[in-house]
């Protein structure tokens, strides 16, 4: 057990803090889930990239700093503490990139990662379909082999694609073996959204922002190089990514400790009684407990002692924590809670937490079955 920051880590943190202090916009950007806001966030992404803060844990060759996971956590902590903009590139750099590093060919990595880091290619995720949500393995989008052209023809529909209307590329699963069922016979494809036959329609989320898209594929040709990790091996490849989505790469602890700091500031501006104080203390503890759990989880994984179901524990906790933090803020605001603003917006966003990245119902099954060993139905 050692929680002291090394000199190098401290220096890394200090550098990040100084840069963020100097560069984070004084006035928060408009939501990155609207067309105008997205464009402004892209500028921010490019600024981050130029200063080599876009992908700190990546190799320097791809625009990163080869940061350790501890440095990455420190960066995230500073990032949220500084109130820096949301990362509209996150589905690429946090969800696709780990899969590319693990399964991509050298050519794929060299071609895709630098452009992703620089926010030139903007990636969205194509998992869900109208009939395949929690039951992802029931997906029906097809990839038909085109031997002549040396590639595949995609057809079908994806939906709930976050920021799909603003992105340039999609990664997703398609059924490449027409005789297959469930999680067999699927392939992980990388698809440019300007390919002929692709239609994208943005549609609004709960808070009214156009944060979702439906994507239709009508006989869309992609070459063999668009396959990530092997034909018919898509499920295994995709599961590596959903693990990342559930676990800490998407939800770094700094996000919640920063939210709690804002919550405490809000409480100081209002009269709060002992009932609220109890909940404030709980909020502070929970965010801190999430940070400590994450440190433990990372340490265990590094020591090869990770446990099954751990990323589901993580996901259950942060998704419910996020809602509790916002509920507490709204309770402090009282009748003013209904006004549009960061807390009401954050509350609405928090409600998606128990739904996306595998519903919490599915996560509870995983904890019960894989961590505790209870029988499947």
């Amino acid at each position, binding site marked *: 057990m050692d929680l002291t920051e090394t000199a190098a880590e401290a220096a890394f943190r200090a550098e990040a803090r100084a840069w963020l202090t100097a560069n984070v916009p004084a006035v928060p950007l408009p939501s990155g889930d609207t067309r105008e806001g997205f464009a402004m966030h892209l500028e921010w992404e490019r600024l981050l990239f130029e200063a080599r803060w876009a992908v700190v844990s990546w190799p320097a060759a791809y625009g990163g700093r080869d940061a350790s996971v501890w440095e990455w956590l420190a960066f995230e902590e500073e990032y949220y503490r500084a109130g820096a903009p949301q990362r509209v590139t996150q589905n690429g750099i946090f969800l696709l990139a780990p899969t590319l590093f693990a399964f991509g060919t050298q050519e794929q990595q060299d071609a895709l990662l630098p452009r992703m880091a620089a926010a030139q290619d903007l990636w969205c995720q194509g998992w*869900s379909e109208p*009939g395949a*949500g*929690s*039951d992802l393995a*029931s997906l029906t989008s097809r990839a038909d082999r085109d031997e002549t052209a040396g590639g595949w023809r995609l057809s079908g529909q994806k*939906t*709930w694609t976050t920021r799909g209307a603003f992105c340039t590329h999609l990664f997703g699963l398609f059924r490449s073996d027409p005789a297959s069922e469930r999680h067999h016979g699927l392939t992980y494809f990388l698809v440019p959204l300007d390919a002929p036959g692709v239609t994208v329609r943005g*549609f*609004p*989320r*709960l808070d*009214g922002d156009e944060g*979702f898209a439906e994507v239709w594929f009508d006989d869309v040709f992609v070459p063999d190089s668009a396959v990530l990790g092997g034909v018919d091996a898509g499920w295994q490849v995709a599961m590596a990514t959903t693990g990342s989505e559930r676990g800490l790469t998407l939800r770094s602890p700094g996000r919640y400790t920063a939210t709690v700091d804002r919550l405490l500031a809000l409480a100081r501006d209002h009269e709060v009684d002992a*009932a609220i104080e109890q909940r404030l203390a709980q909020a502070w503890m929970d965010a801190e407990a999430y940070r400590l759990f994450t440190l433990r989880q990372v340490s265990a994984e590094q020591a090869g002692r990770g446990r099954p179901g751990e990323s589901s524990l993580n996901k259950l906790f942060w998704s419910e924590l996020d809602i509790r933090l916002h509920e507490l803020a*709204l*309770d402090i605001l*009282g*009748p003013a*809670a*209904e*006004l*549009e603003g960061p807390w*009401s917006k954050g509350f*609405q966003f928090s*409600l*998606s937490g*128990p*739904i*996306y990245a595998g*519903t*919490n*119902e599915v996560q*509870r099954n995983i904890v019960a079955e894989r961590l505790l060993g209870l029988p499947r139905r």
Partner: protein
Amino acid sequence: MTHFGLPDDALALRDGLREVLTTACSTAVVRAAWDGDPCEPLWKSLGSFGLPGLLAAEAVGGLGLDELSFVAALEEAGWHGVPGPLVETMSYLPALDLPVDGSARLAVQRPAAVNVAYAQVATHVIRPYEVVAARGAGVVQTVDRSRAMGALAPAPTMTIVAKERYDDFARASLRATLGTAAFLLGLARRQVDLTVAYVKERQQFGVAVGSFQAVKHPLADAVVGTEFAWPAVMRAAYSLATGDPAGSLHVSMAKALASDASYRVSRVCLQAHGAMGYTVEYDLHLFAKRTWALANEWGTAREHRAAIARTILERNER
């Protein structure tokens, strides 16, 4: 003989209103209100039905009914998500000399509040002991956009309320609190109905998702909450109708239980819908967002519980 239930005339009124609202208040109408539409045809229908003046004396054109009919009607109105300051209009009309045909729409400025909900569509704004015949200036957006708020424009005409009507105003405030509780339970019922329909239809893993205990049990628990809040609303209505001195306590209880129960329903129903509930293209959010706003309007659950605690801890010290 003891009987705990809505009287037949209240039930008949509710059924009649249901018929009116089924045609006059589709979700398309609610969505129009989100875009700022004052929904004149709807209010005209409500006026013809007599709803705004439900509590007003028959002498001035009202229906002269009591709070039991009032909560029966507002629960139904909540199910339909009627936009506009219906609760406030019905509650305050009996205290004022204004038309009961739906042409007068009364918004209420709550103590210490800068902005007024429905300021854009109201014809009058009521403040403690004055009535301003004006609409709001500037729009402050709320999560439920049909409740858009505004600060008051300088008042062209203003009426100071006469002292002898102060009691009427206090009663109107209790009624508005109670009516909001009833409206909330209607909103909750609508959300449950939408959810039941959805989870019976939606298939995952080869079965309807509504067959999973993970969906059934939270929904059952949420329904327990609303089922136990509704009798409290009925009781408070009866207390106001009969002049029970504990009326204010009963109204606080009704509002606290309805606020919490309907909020919980909104959470469970959203979750049961999965991603489907998370887009404004689907109707659920119309009712969920109104729930979030009204749960905190006319006293939050915490405020009402605090008031109740003061009463019961004192009362029992006797």
